[in-house]
């Protein structure tokens, strides 16, 4: 059918818009989900299971909770440490490195932007996968860079194809290991072979946002890898395993020379007082929390795998607190139908997995509620 053609621009605005870079004009604004009370009112819900953002359903570790509870309101009148001084000390102690090798940001998304700004200029290119964490691609595109997207192979990053995509203009390769949303991962040998084959003047961002969810000894430790490969920057976050997503604390670690370059383009004072305090406390008390989270995630994964198998549905999951399943209806329709039953999942169309949804792995009650709603929707046909 034909469509209405509406041009919102006035004459002068039109001329102004003509001057905006095409890569900005073409960019899609990300629209975050609305707050729970708003969604619950819209859908007439008394309870909402939010299973869309891979948050840790257990919340933060005990010491982090205590730190937050003890935060005096008067402390908020003062600026935080501009470079997260104490937290970097704690990170250095944890990983046996210098505090100067760490850079803390308002979530890892802020650090992604800082890395791209630091190393890339007009005409440069990035390489990443086409079905991975979207922010690498977004920042690359709205920065006007060529962002070369490499298809996955069997739901996993394809090292050969990624290497083929690298050319003389490539400044950064983004590797999400384990990959969000597939949970697939490269083992030590695969990562090592990849890094050996890559030109040494290409920066590799090794995003390990979900690495704490595994204890598999074959999983590479970025903190160790970066010692042998000075072009590697490791990203980690307190938003997933550490249950501090609401405070937005992420960090990178790398060789000091490289980190100093990123620091030039990094916004100081961007991490708030509560986030710095809670993250530092979380590091001091994480063993029990990590074990409990891993157990919860493993149980939830088994439960959902069984449910999907019983329905004959294809599913994909590996490391991380999430699993994907493919259905025979549009994921965006499934989202709306699940929302009407009080369950919120992540649609995967924007990840280029049409008809897949991703579900955060949480406690039994939430998983059971999801399966009940999911079966009910599929039964409706």
């Amino acid at each position: 059918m034909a469509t209405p053609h509406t041009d919102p621009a006035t004459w002068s605005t039109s001329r102004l818009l003509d001057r905006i870079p095409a890569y900005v004009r073409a960019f899609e604004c990300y629209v975050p989900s609305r707050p729970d009370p708003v969604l619950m009112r819209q859908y007439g819900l008394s309870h909402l299971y939010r299973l869309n953002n891979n948050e840790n359903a257990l919340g933060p570790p005990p010491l982090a909770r205590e730190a937050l509870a003890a935060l005096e309101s008067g402390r908020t009148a003062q600026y935080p440490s501009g470079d997260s001084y104490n937290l970097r000390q704690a990170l250095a102690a944890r990983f046996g490195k210098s505090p100067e090798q760490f850079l803390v940001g308002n979530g890892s998304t802020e650090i992604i932007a800082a890395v791209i700004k630091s190393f890339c200029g007009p005409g440069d290119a990035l390489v990443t996968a086409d079905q991975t964490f979207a922010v690498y691609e977004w920042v690359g595109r709205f920065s006007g860079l060529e962002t070369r997207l490499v298809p996955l192979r069997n739901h996993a990053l394809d090292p050969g194809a990624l290497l083929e995509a690298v050319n003389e203009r490539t400044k950064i390769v983004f590797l999400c290991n384990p990959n969000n949303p597939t949970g697939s991962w490269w083992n030590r040998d695969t990562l090592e072979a990849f890094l050996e084959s890559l030109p040494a003047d290409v920066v590799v961002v090794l995003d390990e946002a979900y690495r704490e969810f595994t204890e598999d000894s074959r999983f590479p430790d970025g903190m160790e890898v970066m010692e042998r490969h000075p072009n590697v920057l490791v990203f980690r976050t307190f938003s997933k395993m550490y249950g501090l997503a609401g405070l937005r604390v992420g960090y990178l670690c790398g060789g000091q020379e490289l980190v100093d370059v990123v620091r030039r383009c990094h916004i100081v004072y961007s991490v708030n007082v509560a986030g710095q305090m809670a993250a530092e406390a979380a590091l001091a008390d994480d063993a029990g929390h990590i074990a409990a989270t891993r157990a919860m995630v493993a149980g939830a994964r088994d439960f959902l795998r069984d449910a999907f198998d019983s329905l004959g549905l294809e599913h994909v999951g590996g490391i991380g607190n999430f699993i994907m399943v493919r259905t025979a209806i549009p994921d965006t329709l499934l989202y709306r139908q699940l929302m009407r039953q009080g369950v919120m999942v992540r649609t995967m169309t924007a990840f280029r997995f049409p008809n897949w949804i991703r579900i955060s792995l949480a406690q039994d009650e939430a998983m059971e509620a999801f399966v009940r709603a999911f079966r009910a929707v599929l039964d409706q046909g």
Partner: protein
Amino acid sequence: MRVNAEQAVFLELPPEAAFLSLAVSAAETAGKAWDLGPGRTPRLALAVEEFFEYLRGNIPPGDTLKLSLRRRGPALRAEFRFRARSLDLRALNFAAGVAPEDGREMGLLLAARFTDRCRLERPGGDSFVLSAEVDRDYPQAEPLTQHPRLQPPYAPLDQPSGDALRHAAMLAAGRYPARLCPHGFFEPGRLLDMVAAGLYEVLVLADKAGRPAGIMLWRSPAGSLSVFFSGPYVLDEARDPAIARALTEGFLARVARTPAICAVSERPTGDLPAEFFEPLGSVGCTQGGERVEQQAFYRSLREDEGASVWAHPDLEPFLRREYERLAFVREILPVEADGGQPHSLLATDLDLRRGMAVLRPLLDGRDLAANLARHVEALGREGAPDIFLHLDLGQAWQAAMSPALLAAGFTPRLLLPHGATSDMVVFEHGDAAH
């Protein structure tokens, strides 16, 4: 005057007769410079002349007329932007009652008839945009009716060559009914120009030997939240469903991270894999003298946030039923018929090749019922048996029109989420609509 790199010319003109020749000359020069052709350029010049003459006497004192001339793929577009606080624009109705003694109104009607597309838009407030487009002529290509047996695997061509695109278009034109094919399938040069200008995006799959295996195309009109797709067109002898599936998945992957909120079928073929889309319903269309129902398919590309829409009580039962069926959360805000000013204004998109016209309200008015009746009569006379009206539920004044539409023989057929500034209802005229 300003010229930019996107092949556009801008003029800001005082509304004085002395500047008419400058405006017309600019249109003629643009037509010549941008290869519109000697047979088509005068049509654009005529539109500019008639628009200028009409507008110069009607814009507020002290205002200027802003004319832009742009090359848009196969077309040249002349566009006037102006303010019109008290301007009586009823003559811009396709079916305006023309008084022979009123030369100005006759001129606008002529302009509408002699151009390929003529459109009035109202970006907001008292701002209007009056535009006309004239297409270049292209040679016709004979559709290819022999479809080879192809060999998997099928892979997308990164940047299909002109020859690959031309070949795929001719194969598709030879397999699918004309109503399911864009005009460019019969005039591949037009298709190539549209793709080069970004008016269409295209995905071509090739088989193991590099032969075209399938094609899908889509367009994202400026200001629209929807992407409108045609296809998938499967080109191998055996009509391998894997090709349709790969085309659909490839299309969705390409639009997934664009500003589009949803994908809507414009020409859905029978090869469309149903599991990727939601059936919206159907509208009637005339094919070979007979009416057939054409299904419409929809897909959100993002998680829906919910919204509010305006609706007259007459339309509310239809909306509630459709929102429930499609599982969209909407707050329906009541609105009553108003009527407002004396004269209504409807924009008309007329596609005579498809025998179809789409009306869009631009101004409400107390003569709406009569205006609708005039349009139905005139469009039928012009050879457009399929008449639709798109009602934007994001505009209270439009939503208030539904009683008049129902009384004029229009029936709500489709609810299109995010089809306009908010959701859109597609009304169809005629006895066949039910």
